[in-house]
């Protein structure tokens, strides 16, 4: 971990994600991330071996149940307090890809420097589910998953404010439209605050949806203006070997998830006439899914 104190670190847990890992690592390397702190939850597909060879990866390994540690939140909270104190920490899953304003021309350091200069400690995003139009090709190792999952929903999100934590609770998108239309309250939360100038007394309360202290959740403006923000492109809806393996093993805690996933992966299940093809961050900015705010 010899990156300078200004370099952002990525924190993530994964399990049997081997085909996804090379692109994941490369994507964030290209953005200029200084180091990866990763927790392997008992992978059996060679992903850990790949990571062990990477010079900028510190790998932790556990066999403990994923569910027991609230989906890895506790592990990562501990690792962040240990290695992320006073540093910009980006907490994502291996299928989440951060897009921020000017990310095609400015490294993540430009963003974090600017956030520092503006005395802003946290950076908010909307999770954007990307999905294929028809049947999904199987992801080749190292392949950009967005070559397969290119489509997204542009304007069907529902927002309420969570009074307890002060964060916005956002639902909607393709999954709500297709699989949760009759039970919308159960649709997954899409608000995430993945990038935080960490302090050891901070803690994520639920995934990266919200954290404490509450002030960190104020990544939105209530007076009409727009705060600088990004999107987390979600590459979940891509066929990979790993998912198959998971289904075969049929592990209790992943079983329901795997069945749900199979439904999503029915060809064309998520696509509709109004789906939009992903181009770049400027498109998302124009659609109102993220904002440059006053970062110009």
């Amino acid at each position, binding site marked *: 971990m010899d990156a300078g104190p200004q370099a952002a670190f990525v924190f993530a847990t994964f399990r049997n994600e081997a085909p996804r890992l090379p692109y994941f690592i490369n994507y964030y390397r290209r953005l200029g991330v200084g180091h990866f702190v990763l927790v392997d939850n008992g992978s059996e597909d060679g992903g850990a071996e790949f990571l062990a060879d990477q010079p900028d990866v510190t790998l932790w390994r556990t066999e403990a149940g994923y569910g027991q540690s609230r989906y890895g939140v506790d592990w990562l909270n501990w690792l962040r307090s240990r290695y992320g104190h006073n540093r910009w920490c980006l907490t994502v899953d291996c299928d989440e890809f951060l897009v921020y304003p000017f990310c095609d021309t400015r490294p993540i350091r430009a963003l974090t420097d600017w956030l520092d200069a503006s005395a802003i400690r946290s950076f908010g995003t909307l999770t954007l589910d990307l999905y294929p139009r028809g049947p999904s090709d199987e992801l080749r190792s190292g392949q950009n998953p967005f070559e397969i999952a290119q489509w997204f929903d542009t304007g069907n999100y*529902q927002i309420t404010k969570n009074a307890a934590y002060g964060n916005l609770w956002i639902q909607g998108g393709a999954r709500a439209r297709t699989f949760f239309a009759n039970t919308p309250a159960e649709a997954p939360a899409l608000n995430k605050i993945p990038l935080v100038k960490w302090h050891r007394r901070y803690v994520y309360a639920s995934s990266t949806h919200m954290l404490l202290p509450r002030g960190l959740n104020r990544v939105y403006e209530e007076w009409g203006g727009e705060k600088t*923000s990004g999107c987390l492109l979600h590459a979940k809806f891509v066929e990979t070997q790993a998912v198959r393996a998971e289904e075969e093993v049929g592990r209790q805690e992943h079983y329901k998830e795997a069945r749900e996933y199979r439904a999503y992966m029915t060809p064309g299940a998520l696509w509709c006439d109004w789906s939009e093809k992903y181009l770049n961050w400027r498109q998302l900015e124009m659609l109102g899914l993220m904002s440059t*705010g006053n970062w110009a």
Partner: protein
Amino acid sequence: MTVRVGVLMLVHEALDRARQVARHWYRQGCPIVIHADSRVPAADFEDLKTSLGDLADIHFVDRRRCDWGTWSLVDATQAAVETLLDAYPDVTHAYLASGACLPLRPVADLNRYLAIHPGVDFIESVAIEDVPWAKGGLDEERFRFGFPFAWKRSRRLFDVWVKLQRAVGRHRACPEGLRPHLGSQWWCLTRETLETIRSDPERPALERYFRRVWIPDESYYQTMVRYYGRAVQSQSLTLSKFDHQGKPHIFYDDHLEMLERSNGFVARKIWPDASGLYDRFLRRPRPESPEWPQPKRIDRAFARSLDRRIRGRDGLYSAFRFPHPTRGIGLTAAGYAAFEGFDDVFEAFPDWAEKAMRLRMHGHLFGPDRVEFAGGQSSFAGGLSDNAKLRDYNAEAFLTSLIWNTRGETQGFLYGPRDTPEIGEFLAGDQNARIYAVSGAWAARLFRSGLGAQSVRKEAALLQKQEAAHLSRLRWAETRARVRIWTLAEFLDQPSEVLQTLIEENGPTVDRPMVNAPLMHDLTGLAGFLQDLKNLGMNPHLAGDVAEIAGQDIPKAAPRIVL
């Protein structure tokens, strides 16, 4: 006139870049005086000195600790000015720059520009009463109060001290004849001006005053040039933009083209890692050019980002913008129209409305079973679903999304007492909503069902109760929507006038389409039906005067409207 510019550089970070820029200035004949903040680590400072050691005309002044907003910055500048003026009698101008400033054009261009403006000081200098950028809430108080504490280091003391002075109404005496002015810290002043300022016998008294002023680096020289009546061009030669909090905008590699087009001499602040900019402007300097600066070109780009941050996009709700409903901020992105009851009296009203008013006309968007999108589609712009449960989970989000997703195309829809009632409150409060209602029109639909008054009596009562609540909400003083309500009786009396109103307020103003009036449903016998309801104890009062309708020969179709 022979111009020679000396450069004063205030540096406190990114010393490598400062060194690079100093060499660049130097290569073009500028002597340089550098002040490095005392917080720069000693080793780094020694590195800087050593790395520039081969250059004869580079000087370093004693290091001070510079706290933002305090006199220390002016003090450092003065020391650098002294050194420059004393060491280089041939220097005609001093250019104040920071380590994050980047020269965009050859010094020869700057020299020519200064030569055709002899004796002119380039310094932004605006009288405080005219300053539009009131930043940090301290305006004329900057000069009225004293500020012995550094804002960044001792925030609490700073705030307490300000409050205290406000409480006692402090008013520090301003030296005679001084009119406080403000402006960018980065100036280019003539030797004469700087000599006048430094040799004035009153200088100690003036300085005593400025030592306790807030942010003197943006007011000391800006005020002095006025005090001595110099020829001031109130404009900085350094392109520098500030955001709403007074924080300088940063330039990155992707600003290259914009910086080139600006024709500015110097820009700040440059991100230290913007190697594209440093390479372009330092390693491959541009040829000399006769063009003069065009800062407006840069202003536009940054004005947009300020607008995004302060006002944002109306009608947009997202992870970064969630306006509080009570703050009078636009609820939706564009105007739209809701038609209530028109489908009960007209055949195919949506088709007609779409043609006559050029609206994207939906059916009952808030219908109980499903969303009736235009064309019967199962999904619509933005990926909105026709599922009623999903819609009603957050009806406001549904409507605001619809309006946002269809910017540039006006939406219209049917609404009625069978539809999701909750959205009525939102419609009433939205200044973009235009609501047209024929009250009691549901009675016409019940009548046409042919079921007879007895069997629909209960439903009629429910619908009327629902509609009455909605209409009474529309009549509140707080309503911001444009609302027009006709009773069924009023409508039947003059249907063409009602249609005329719809077209005038919603249709295109020029090039109006020729469209026939819509056909009305056959309502022969409606009056009797309403009387039956009344006789059963259910008074359909929203429909208007039943007797009035009874006296009329209700036409099968509204007369042809000539538009």
